[in-house]
């Protein structure tokens, strides 16, 4: 069975392999260095534990959660996904806001629209879905949807930990040779390094660290190279599946762009995310058969959070009937509280 659970230090090697398989990517991704990744996993373990201790009144802090997708039959970790409860994690969260100015002259009777990219921190403190990485072989499977949406199930069950607005950064345009047109037209000038090198530094330090070396002034779109202009707000081809899934969830592209590759930043109101709206709490019960609607089912508090896919039959009284193997997978027993959402 497919299971999504909090990442553990023992997952380090598997996650490193997954992260190594993807190309350079400066935004919301995983570090590809041992120590940095180990630190990130430790941070996640600690944050899951902290939130176990938290009083319901005090959830202002920024927490970082990392989940893994495990094949319970083999024990193999095949994907990873994260949530930062507050984007920026206490530091400014940088984006460009694409905006327009009208350059007009009454005397010459001329008016002209000028597109400008403004550095912005406006999305700082929103809940950020990040670090989504999955074994490419699983791209068109239910496991893909499970891994992505399990985070929404977690948010639904721990709503008080998260902000009212959620954002996701989508990878921008990159050529097959690894060049990022937007970076080459803008960021490269200020770092004297290619995208991949900057990406490595970003993994070792932080995205904010790199972002703060970018020019603090607005950038005129018309002065970017034609390739960079064409890449504004465009998602990388290989993110199509992710993009489509997030759109179904209710995320939409707005005026914010990634400051390094100009990929779109998707935004949504947390409370209107489809999984959060459509998921229902219920009580776990056994079912003798594998019949019923296939859905996401999650249970367990914070560090004990588990989410899997299972056939499910629901009764009018809110009892959720699932096969016993699903209980085992979730580590729960009859009578425990669970949450379900249709696939």
């Amino acid at each position, binding site marked *: 069975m497919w299971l999504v659970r909090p990442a553990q230090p023992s997952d380090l090697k598997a996650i490193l392999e997954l992260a190594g398989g993807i190309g350079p990517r400066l935004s919301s991704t995983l570090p590809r260095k041992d120590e940095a990744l180990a630190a990130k996993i430790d941070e996640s373990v600690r944050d899951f534990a902290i939130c176990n201790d938290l009083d319901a009144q005090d959830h202002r802090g920024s927490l970082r959660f990392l989940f893994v997708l495990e094949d319970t039959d083999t024990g193999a970790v095949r994907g990873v996904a994260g949530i930062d409860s507050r984007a920026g994690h206490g530091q400014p969260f940088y984006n460009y806001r694409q905006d327009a100015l009208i*350059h*007009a*002259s009454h*005397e*010459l009777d*001329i008016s*002209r629209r*000028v597109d*400008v990219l403004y550095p912005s921190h406006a999305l700082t403190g929103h809940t950020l879905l990040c670090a989504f990485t999955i074994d490419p072989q699983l791209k068109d499977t239910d496991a893909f949807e499970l891994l992505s949406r399990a985070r929404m199930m977690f948010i639904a069950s721990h709503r008080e930990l998260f902000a009212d607005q959620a954002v996701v950064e989508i990878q921008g345009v990159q050529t097959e040779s690894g060049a990022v047109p937007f970076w080459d*037209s*803008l960021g490269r*000038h*200020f*770092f*004297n*390094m290619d995208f991949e090198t900057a990406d490595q*530094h970003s993994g070792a*330090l932080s995205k904010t*660290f790199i972002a703060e*070396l970018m*020019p603090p*002034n*607005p*950038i*005129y779109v*018309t*002065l*970017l190279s034609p390739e960079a202009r064409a890449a504004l707000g465009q998602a990388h081809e290989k993110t199509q599946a992710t993009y489509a899934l997030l759109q179904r969830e209710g995320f939409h592209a707005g005026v914010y762009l990634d400051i390094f590759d100009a990929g779109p930043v998707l935004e949504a109101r947390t409370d209107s995310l489809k999984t959060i709206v459509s998921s229902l709490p219920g009580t776990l019960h056994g079912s003798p058969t594998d019949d019923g609607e296939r859905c996401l089912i999650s249970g367990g508090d914070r560090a004990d959070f588990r989410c899997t896919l299972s056939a499910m039959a629901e009764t009018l009284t809110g009892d959720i009937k699932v096969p016993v193997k699903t209980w085992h997978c979730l580590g729960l027993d009859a009578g425990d509280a669970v949450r379900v959402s249709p696939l």
Partner: protein
Amino acid sequence: MLVIRPLQENDLEALYAMAQSAGKGLTTLPADRDLLQRKIRHARDTFNQRCAPEAGLYLFALEDTELGQCVGISGIQARVGLDEVFYNYRLSVTVNASRELGVHVRTPTLHLSNDMTDTSEICSLLLSDSHRGGGNGLLLSRCRFMFLDHFRKHFSEKVFAEMRGVSDKEGRSPLWDALGRQFFDMDFTEADMLSGLGNKSFIAELMPKFPIYLPMLPDSARAVIGRVHDNTAPALKMLQSEGFNFNGMVDIFDGGPVVEAFVHNIRTVRDSTDRIVMIRSKPGDKSRGEVMVCNGAFQDFRVTTVPADCVNIDTISLSASVASALGVEAGDRVRLAPLKDAGLSTTNRNGDTNHAGRSSRA
């Protein structure tokens, strides 16, 4: 005899003819009768002190007394940017540094600036083709420094000149094409012409206000920032020999440099001395060089050149006709300054006409 005097109303036709033959290169003086007429009136009011000192436009005519005609002009704008906004780009540097990344990158950056506001500008130099050479360009240019020296209180301590930037034979400017044009869909020649007609600040208001990072501009545009048009190179050299230096400002359209100097440091000002006039009929010998002689009057300002061997220890010998042209008598005090300097060969003089050929705001 060639004499510098304030420009007068009856110079209009001569000025118009010169402006016409100067063609497109000269923004300051477009061949537009009404505009030239307004400028002449403005200059007349300035010399008659009928306008506020800071609004003054001092235009000087080079008159060929034999022809009785104006054969060249030059000017000083008392203050720029007072009744409209005067824009330049300041060429500065943005440094990105991080010890952790081992990064230390300098990015040349253009910042829109109004720093030249309230400063005096030398401008509008134009010399008729028939009178090129023989130091006439130098006289037209340097007479202004003698005026500045005499009437410092009417001007700022520092004066500047905008030098024409690079453009090709068809009048295309690489900087305009890469920058201005992106914001304002117009040819450089048209924008240039509009700015000559006094619309420059309107155009400037359509230009980008945020800093421009030069690496984002094409190489062709970056290469011309702070560089002068070939025709203007001699004029730049002349101003440099007077002590003018590039001050980091460039024209927002073509990237031509702004050069500036403190009045008290200008070579003509430093090298000028006073002499008492003596009238004598013996003509001097021009082969030993010439000096500029200035009468020091405001409304009747006059400068002409005399052979250097007319200069004595305390006095200067002037013929009666020269004294009359200057409006001085024996015993009057005049100021002298050298006309030529060793560093400047005669081949440079033809370019004098284009110097400061940019943007007078009158």
